[in-house]
């Protein structure tokens, strides 16, 4: 069992973690050519506000970044609109996220860079 856990950890280190500083999880891009973006998440508490960090790995000017989340199984989203702060160099702070029910939540991130719009998702399971 321990070996299996290690193997997963190594796998995670090589594939899911990204950007130079190796923190966060790579968001799943809708288009293959989309620039790489990562999300840095805390241990998400149930029904309590939490913050996340979203980073575009190779920087570039972000015109607009939108973050939302839904529960695909229950046909509903969050009861709050998160607050997004541009920290520069492709970094964004996302505050006021609340996942008020346990289950699978899907982050939906939309990054506008000039005329280009890229959409990303990332799923987490909340207990």
């Amino acid at each position: 069992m321990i070996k299996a856990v290690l193997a997963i950890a190594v796998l995670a280190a090589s594939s899911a973690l990204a950007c130079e500083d190796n923190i966060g999880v790579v968001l799943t891009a809708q288009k293959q050519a989309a620039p790489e973006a990562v999300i840095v998440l805390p241990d998400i508490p149930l029904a309590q506000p939490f913050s996340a960090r979203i980073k575009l790995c190779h920087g570039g000017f972000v015109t607009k970044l939108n973050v939302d989340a839904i529960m695909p199984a229950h046909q509903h989203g969050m009861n709050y609109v998160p607050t997004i702060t541009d920290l520069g160099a492709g970094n964004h702070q996302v505050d006021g996220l609340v996942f008020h029910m346990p289950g699978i939540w899907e982050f939906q991130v939309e990054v506008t860079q000039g005329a280009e719009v890229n959409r990303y998702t990332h799923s987490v399971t909340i207990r």
Partner: protein
Amino acid sequence: MIRWGVLTVAICGQTAAAEVLLTPDEIDQTLSFGPWPPITQNDPSNRVSGNAAAIALGATLFHDTALSVDHRFACSSCHDPTYSFAAPVRRAMGREKLARNSPSLMNLAGLRWYGWGGKSDNLWAASLHPIIHPVEMAQTADSWRERLANSANAAPYEALFGPLESQTPQMVLVNTAKTLAAYQETLVTPKTAFDIFRDALERGDLKTAGTYPHSAQRGLQLFLTRGNCSFCHSGPRFSNNEFHDAGVAYFIDETTVDGGRYEGLRFLFSSPYTLAGDWSDDDAKSGAWAVRNVRQTHADFGAFRTPSLRGAAHTAPYMHDGSLPDFDAVVRHYNEINMERMHTDGEAVLAPLDLTEAEVSDLTGFLETLSLRE
């Protein structure tokens, strides 16, 4: 934590196997309902939160009919300490019959929303509204300042807040509500049979955990699994403190409906007494993100705040309109939930449960263990 669960069950497999019926995963979920009581901080929006003199004045005022314009009601008329600060009637009786059931006032410190529709984002605002509500205590800020100034409560009030004559009536009203809130923050339900079980599981003390009745354990399992109850009744208070349509009719009478969260938000957005407003004593406005960022959706209509289940055995009848007389009726309500009453985009987690009679009684028995019976 999950691995630990596997371990304990493995051990108990050899010794007292039958005593703890939960799977490791269920044990893990059970731990999330505690510890109890939760640690709460003083409310930064209320500068007298946690202040002993304010708590004492709030306690006096709570039970004082002087708070209502014609001395007809005290807060305790509808929030009766004998019934865990609720009232044993379906809909509260004010100057006329109100649309909703009086909720218990236990365990209210530090919540994000108050009221069935969440019309307040803090406890002092939730305590202020009944004072001026025309069908409740029907004061105005002026009439209340006048009443207070001519009463024995003027001295303790001034000791806390300074001379009455230098304060506007609205300021006196807010300060009064803040003492009521300080008092209510001290109302906490005690540990129950459930907490003894939960804490024992956390310690790995299966002998103690095993004394929790099997029927309650089976009820807890239903609560966590097939019943889907913990989707909304989660955390140490058994409430996510958010808003849902639990399939209760929202007709008040033949022609009026209770808009629930929809009305709550309308009220909230027009209230000067929110955490984002000037009456909050918190310069950082720390809790204000919720009122600023809460999202209005069409699902708000007919949605109500998930009530806590702690101490609920003492607060029948149930639901926002008090329409269900006891736990048995509540469990049967969920068991046979009428999907036609739900919004078309209603909660996908609610569906008829197909529980047997024995299971209904297990689930009811579990709910009982969240209250302390004398």
